[in-house]
């Protein structure tokens, strides 16, 4: 390819990307107008909600966004592994819940100094999540159950199991949640202003960095990439496909478990139903958008966290439902996926023969093969 045509393609890709963002902003504005509010007002409230005020950064509100971002990033990190391996780990939500259950068990039953107690809780959560994911992996490799269906089932099981614990053995009178954990079992904020757990933040950065290097630099990462594109060919090239499926699932479950532990040990301070709060599914969306370009995950995840965090202000200030944030997300995701498809077409080939299948095509394929 000549230099100029390469530049031309870059410019085209950038242009389409910008256009897709512009279109989604426009659509969002139209929807806001349709429900009878002012888009500019909404924008102001959202930026206020994430802590951007005319007088400067409101640290308390900003830390709310970061606290949503941390578990989301744990989940995204794990999903990058399964996505690279061509696996649709829908069960990530249940893996978070089961991790949270395991952390809760340690928090309630083990009494040790904080420096040992908290790491032990997080480790239990991570191993629990890994176990839950490995079950879905085993269902796939041994039982021939597609991971999407296995994952949906395991999500339900984890949810029902946690509800049983909350309303039964672990519950207090109301049955809405477990009693609050003891102070020594919790992750603590850095300061009263910046209410973010340093341990969780640092751990998240380390884990993300580690996975990024493992995927981009190791033989194992390349094996995952190969089987993600073609499991059959990878097998014939000597890749231990089945083992890698289990490993990738378990590793993703490990991260999901960590995310679950942050939710119970920091966000809530106890176990409650649907403790995962949809973060797992949101993580799937983020990874769907980034594809295997891992470095895009942190900013995109942060962006989503900001929209969600900011939108909590909408109800109070403008009597708008918070679910508007979900609508904005949906439009954005659709537009980006659409942009991928358009780019594929403009490359002058039939979309189905473009070298990088767009995420939407892969999703379709996964659904069909299930």
């Amino acid at each position, binding site marked *: 390819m000549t230099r100029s045509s390469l530049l031309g393609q870059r410019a085209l890709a950038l242009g389409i990307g910008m256009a897709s963002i512009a279109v989604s902003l426009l659509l969002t504005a139209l929807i806001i107008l349709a429900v009878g509010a002012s888009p500019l007002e909404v924008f102001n409230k959202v930026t206020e909600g994430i802590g951007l005020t005319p007088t400067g950064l409101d640290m308390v509100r900003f830390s709310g966004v970061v606290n949503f971002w941390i578990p989301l990033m744990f989940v995204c990190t794990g999903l990058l592994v399964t996505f690279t391996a061509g696996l649709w780990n829908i069960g990530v939500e249940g893996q978070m819940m089961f991790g949270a259950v395991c952390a809760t068990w340690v928090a309630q039953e083990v009494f040790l100094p904080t420096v040992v107690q908290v790491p032990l809780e997080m480790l239990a959560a991570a191993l629990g999540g890994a176990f839950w994911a490995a079950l879905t992996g085993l269902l796939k490799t041994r039982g021939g159950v597609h991971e999407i269906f296995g994952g949906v089932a395991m999500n339900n099981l984890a949810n029902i199991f946690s509800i049983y614990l909350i309303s039964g053995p672990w519950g207090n009178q109301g049955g809405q949640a477990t009693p609050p954990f003891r102070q020594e079992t919790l992750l603590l904020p850095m300061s009263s202003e910046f209410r973010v757990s340093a341990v969780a933040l640092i751990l998240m950065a380390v884990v993300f960095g580690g996975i990024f290097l493992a995927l981009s630099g*190791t*033989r194992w990462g*390349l094996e995952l990439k190969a089987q993600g594109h*073609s499991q*059959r*060919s990878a097998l014939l*090239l000597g*890749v231990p496909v089945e083992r890698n499926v289990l490993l990738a699932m378990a590793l993703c479950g490990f991260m999901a478990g960590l995310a679950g532990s942050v939710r119970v040990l920091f966000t809530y301070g106890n176990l409650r139903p649907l403790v995962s709060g949809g973060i797992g599914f949101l993580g799937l969306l983020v990874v769907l958008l980034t594809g295997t370009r891992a470095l895009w995950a942190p900013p995109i995840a942060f962006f989503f966290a900001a929209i969600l965090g900011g939108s909590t202000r909408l109800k109070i200030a403008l009597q708008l439902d918070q679910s508007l944030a979900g609508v904005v997300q949906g439009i954005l995701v659709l537009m980006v996926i659409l942009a991928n498809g358009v780019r594929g077409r403009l490359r002058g080939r039939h979309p189905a023969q473009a*070298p*990088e299948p767009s995420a939407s095509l892969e999703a379709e394929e996964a659904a069909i093969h299930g």
Partner: protein
Amino acid sequence: MSVEVRHIHKTFGAVHANDDISLTFADGRIYGILGENGAGKSTLMKILSGFYLADSGQILIDGRLVHYDTPRGAIEVGIGMLAQDPLDVGPLTVLENFVYGQPVGPLPDWQAARRRFAELAERLGFRLEPDMPVERLSIGQRQELEIIRLLALGVRVLILDEPTTGISAEQKSVLFASLQRLAREDGLTILFVSHKLEDVLELCDEVAVLRLGRLVGTAVMPVTTGELVAMMFGQALAPPSRRAATPGDTVLEVQDLFMASERVVMRDCQVCVRAGEVVGLAGLDGSGQQLLTRACVGLARPLGGRVLINGVDMTGRPYRDFLAAGVSFGAAGRLEEGLVAGLTLAEHFILTDAGQGWWIDRERGRQIAEERIAHYRIMGRPDSPIETLSGGNQQRVLMALIPPAPRLLVLEHPTRGLDVESARWIWEQILARCAAGTAVMFTSADLDELVTYSDRILVFYAGQVTEVPDARSVTVDELGHLIGGQRVGEEAGR
């Protein structure tokens, strides 16, 4: 309907697949499009049939400029292509596949469709059962279905890409007769893409030869094979030399193998392949050869019997154990089984390089890729995605991925879809490994290939195996009759 292409250009990455190609095809004539693998034939045909959009250039139909960028658009202007792998839907019946793709409403008129189908099949001499599920048809029958479907869509220019690969001799003669009728009687323009010179000589009225993306010449029949080869390669080729077989120890031993697929049951199959020996597996597709090759590399589990590699019982062990035991396998489908679309050339070599540690040494990977690219004369760069390479170059990569001296090399259709030069070159590589003591077992639909390169041939017919102990003593004709189910010694001149 006449078709003209003017100054067609198409690039894929660094490869100029079509470089300023201008050709005219008149109606009522059959054109052979010749060229070695990677010459740009398929690209040109895919542009004509709307799968690709040319970077620049024009297509004219009856002197009128046309534009389209989808296969549907091509069919609307009257150009239809029969792909190498027919585009049909397995579980549906022949008739359903015929109706599917036709411009019909939500409630098709099945009776009319059935009549129209029978009419077309009759006229072309195709024997197709309309209610048979397509997955039970042979490749040749699926091609016949596809031709009928395209004709019903009103196609006036029919493009066939390597249609004689994987079909029987009878099916080929039926196909050729019907193509000639379509050209002579109905005035269709037929473009016949092939690397098989004898097919082109038999069928075509004119040929166009491409080399390295450029049109190197056209000729009106009759021309000689030598002239065509000279045009394709710039030189005439001598057939590769046969070496004398000096078999060593038994590497592969198959005892009383019992296997079954949907199409065939194979019982009591006995095979023995020794070091330095080439054993060819002949037979129509689905006669049991693939069951054997898959069982011998651990990709299919036998129902009974044993598979021994170097005297060790490997029956039912996974593929990776066979790899560890020194078995190498080259499957028939390149991008489906063997190469990973989405990975670069260098990444393929890194994956199969035992010298790579846990942490990838990209520089080492790039160097090895460059060495292999040079040694195996692959047209591509270390960072080329594998799917951008032509079929022949993909086959070369597969060969380059096979370790230098495996104990046993099992190959399915090692030269399927390759031109004479590439096929000859692939066999040089196989024979070099053989001379170093590798035992080779391969399947092929090409009788010449089987007779030329095998020491012994096993003929599969409906799961039954007949051995030809000395491949040198058998002729292509005799082998053809064995494949058709006649036993050795029976009258071969029926």
